[in-house]
């Protein structure tokens, strides 16, 4: 019965978004009405998801895929019909296939996990947002956009073909853009939303190219078909490590898409800025769901990735590098949300590392647990921010433990989880990743990746403990500098920070419970569990024969590794606690000793500045000089040229601030802009030049045909 209602899961939030968007303002609904509609629709989706889960598990698992096309459930329709196409790649090149876009859903173990995460965490965050957004002028708009996001995210995870995935992919990007820029009167929010959108687009372009390649190779965009064909060794042969064949190219395109959406090197720069949005948005989109879409996509296309060890290695390297870099940057951040943002990037690095070493289950499992504890961390941060009247600087916090007990205790659970303390969710999933990295046979150098992961554990434990120490422990530092609420400049009367209302603390408690128990879903056999999570996902994963033995291999090594990482985390936590609470002088001394590194970390290793200075200022200036010369000599006389140069140099100074926002595009686009200036210089305004170009074009075309044509 629930399987018949699958289409309602995304449709309900969409309906709610439409209702709120259209009627919210004209009818002047109260916040109460709006929150009932918004949360109610997500709750219904959650209920249906739960029902589908139960029914699917009981009746269908382990048969892997249940799709609309196969008649699994109704309501797929041909969205855009297409024609026959000739395939151009692979063994079927020359054959014809139908190219069409279908709107259809798919239920399988992987999308089931994602649906549960999205609806469950999404619902809790919706509830939290009622309290967080109270009194905001755009209440209806916020929930309409949030619901729209739910629709897009569910489309992304439930779509049964690449095109649906792409639609959801673009859609969540758009909603993210809208929600980051929700407070559009704030300059940082506006800039950040733009940056996020454009950086995401760079990734999308890789994804789109990969999609074209997938169709040209397989002749279909349906996941089931593509995965079936890709698993066939004769169709898509496994490449040797170091080879870069068809599978690698497709995987590369997909991975570029994933780095954009999931904020990996080099496209991670948008995520910290995205914290300018409201905190529930950060929790939902930029921690729990949207940013994990890249991991979802990698897992969804795991067959293709498994065929290309080269790309697997690249994925692992990028994941490992990201996890270290982001964790190091998180060391010196003072904004509580920025710390959490870099922590998210770092955790996403873990997931990519897991995918890279071939442990897709571990990646998805970490995604699953991370959704709980990171959402909890963000919501806790939101609770603090509200209590402190929108102040986010940790240097002005401290000692909140006694003021906000519920927030504190839930936060502690999340902190322990992210540090990997037994037996919370983070411990289970992170150790799974480390163990898989240690034993991987998919790519070489597994032990090195394990070591990097272990360093990451230590770093995580340190910066999270630092966050706890600065926020909850020690003595309060917020009293002298209480600031106004929001943007207005009038000082608000000082009041003690208070515990948040029930509507905000209840989601915290629920997520804390989730954080505590989520790990048991995938409890490893080494500790007496039965790896339910892995068995659950097994049907959608492709596994090479050689890998099976490593899977079964358990022993003393695993226990040792577990103990090592847990002990390391605990030791670092203790050390950090000690340093930040009792030995501030030592801390100061250490900071002084490593001052360059500390500054580098605080300034995010100048990556933004690097993009800005190298690509925007330096090269354009140099190139523009060159082009100025050629222009004056070739195109036009010196008179025009000097006038042009005057205009141009005045424009140059304008450029630097005009384009600061989108530095990443500048990185790609500086060359384009140089060409652009050259192309504009060709447009001399002199009519006969244009006529000459026309004649020239005619001459070239004709000559080409006469010389080579006949």
């Amino acid at each position, binding site marked *: 019965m629930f399987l018949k209602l699958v289409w309602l899961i995304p449709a309900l939030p969409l309906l709610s978004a439409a209702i709120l968007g259209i009627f919210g303002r004209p009818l002047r609904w109260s916040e109460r009405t709006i929150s009932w509609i918004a949360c109610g629709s997500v709750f219904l989706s959650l209920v249906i998801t739960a029902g589908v889960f139960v029914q699917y598990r009981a009746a269908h698992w382990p048969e892997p895929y249940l799709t609309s096309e196969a008649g699994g459930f109704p309501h797929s329709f041909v969205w855009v019909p297409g024609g026959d196409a000739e395939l151009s790649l692979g063994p079927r090149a020359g054959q014809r296939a139908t190219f069409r876009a279908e709107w259809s859903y798919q239920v399988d173990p992987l999308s089931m996990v994602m649906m549960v995460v999205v609806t469950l965490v999404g619902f809790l965050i919706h509830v939290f947002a009622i309290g967080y957004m109270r009194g905001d002028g755009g209440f209806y708009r916020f929930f309409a956009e949030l619901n729209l996001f739910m629709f897009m995210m569910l489309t992304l995870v439930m779509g049964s073909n690449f095109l649906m995935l792409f639609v959801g992919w673009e859609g969540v990007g758009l909603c993210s853009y809208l929600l980051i820029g929700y407070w559009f009167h704030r300059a940082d929010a506006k800039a950040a939303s733009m940056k996020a959108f454009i950086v995401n687009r760079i990734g999308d372009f890789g994804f789109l190219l990969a999609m074209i390649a997938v169709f040209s190779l397989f002749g279909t965009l349906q996941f089931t078909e593509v995965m079936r064909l890709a698993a066939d060794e004769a169709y898509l042969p496994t490449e040797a490590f170091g080879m870069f064949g068809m599978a690698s190219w497709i995987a590369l395109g997909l991975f570029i898409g994933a780095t954009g959406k999931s904020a990996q090197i080099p496209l991670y720069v948008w995520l910290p800025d995205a914290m300018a949005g409201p905190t529930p948005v950060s929790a939902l989109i930029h921690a729990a769901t949207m940013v994990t879409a890249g991991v979802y996509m990698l897992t969804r296309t795991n067959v293709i990735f498994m065929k290309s060890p080269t790309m697997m290695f690249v994925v692992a390297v990028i994941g490992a590098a990201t996890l270290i870099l982001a964790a190091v940057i998180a060391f010196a951040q003072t904004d509580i949300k920025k710390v959490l943002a870099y922590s998210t990037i770092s955790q996403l690095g873990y997931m990519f590392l897991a995918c890279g070493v071939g442990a897709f289950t571990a990646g998805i499992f970490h995604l699953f647990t991370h959704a709980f504890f990171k959402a909890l961390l963000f919501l806790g941060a939101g609770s603090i921010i509200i209590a402190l009247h929108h102040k986010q600087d940790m240097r002005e916090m401290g000692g909140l433990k006694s003021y906000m007990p519920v927030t504190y205790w839930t936060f502690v659970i999340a902190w322990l989880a992210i540090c990997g303390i037994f037996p919370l969710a983070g411990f289970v999933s992170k150790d799974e990743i480390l163990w898989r990295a240690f034993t991987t046979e998919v790519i070489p150098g597994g032990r090195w990746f394990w070591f990097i992961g272990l360093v990451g554990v230590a770093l995580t434990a340190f910066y999270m403990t630092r966050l706890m120490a600065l926020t909850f422990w020690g003595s309060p530092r917020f009293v002298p500098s209480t600031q106004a609420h929001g943007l207005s400049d009038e000082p608000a009367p000082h009041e003690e920070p208070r515990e948040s209302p029930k509507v905000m603390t209840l989601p915290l408690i629920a997520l804390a419970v989730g954080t505590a128990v989520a790990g048991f879903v995938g409890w490893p056999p080494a500790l007496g569990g039965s790896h339910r999570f892995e068995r659950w996902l097994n049907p959608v994963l492709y596994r090479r024969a050689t890998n099976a033995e490593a899977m079964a291999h358990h022993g003393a090594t695993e226990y040792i590794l577990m103990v090592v990482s847990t002990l390391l985390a605990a030791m670092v936590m203790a050390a950090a606690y000690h340093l930040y609470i009792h030995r501030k002088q030592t801390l100061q001394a250490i900071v002084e000793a490593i001052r360059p590194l500390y500054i580098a970390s605080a300034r995010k290793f100048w990556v933004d500045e690097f993009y800005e200075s190298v690509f925007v200022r330096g090269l354009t200036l140099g190139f523009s000089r060159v082009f100025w010369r050629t222009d004056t000599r070739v195109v036009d*006389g010196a008179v025009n040229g000097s006038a042009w140069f005057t205009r141009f140099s005045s424009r140059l100074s304008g450029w630097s601030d005009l384009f600061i926002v989108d530095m990443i595009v500048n990185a790609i686009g500086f060359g384009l802009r140089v060409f652009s200036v050259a192309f504009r210089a060709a447009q001399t305004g002199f009519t*006969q*030049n244009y006529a*000459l170009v026309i*004649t020239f074009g005619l*001459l070239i075309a004709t000559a080409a045909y*006469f010389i080579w044509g006949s």
Partner: protein
Amino acid sequence: MELAGTEAVFFYILALFTLVMAIALVTAPTAVRGALYLMATLIGVAGLFLLLHAEFVAGAQILIYVGGVVVLFIFVIMLVNIRAEINEPFRTYTRQRRLAAVVVIVMVLGVWYFGIQQDPFHLVRQGPVVALIPPPGAPPPPVEEPTLGGRISEDTQEVGSVLYTKAALPFEIASVLLLVAIVGSVVLARTRRQEETFD
């Protein structure tokens, strides 16, 4: 089609005249002289039309082109150009003249070279043959004997009949086109004072 004997001689004369006048046009120092050279060129082309048995078109060329368009040019030159040319010393050519000349010369040489190599209309060398096999079932069209000139052909008649049957619709569109030209010239050329008087 072959022009032989006297016709060929006339071809040489007219072609040379046309080309020389055309070159004189594009090198004319002032616009008035340019207009006169244009008139001469158009008359030369009209002569070539006569040579090709297109008497009606030749007449239209003289009447419309020479009698209308060129006169219009001269009107506008009187209105605009005299003062402009007297007020400031006027360079004849633009800065890109050398490049343009190279492009045009390459174009001419190229066409000459390839055109002579390919000779797409070589069939004419073998006399009046049916170059294209007509679609099956169609009666063979009458073959006209080559004439040596001196006789008014019936082409004008045929042009008239085609103009009012096949070309009836383009003819009507052309009338709309002329209406647009009238409206356009009025819109563009009237002054503020004229507009206010009208209002």
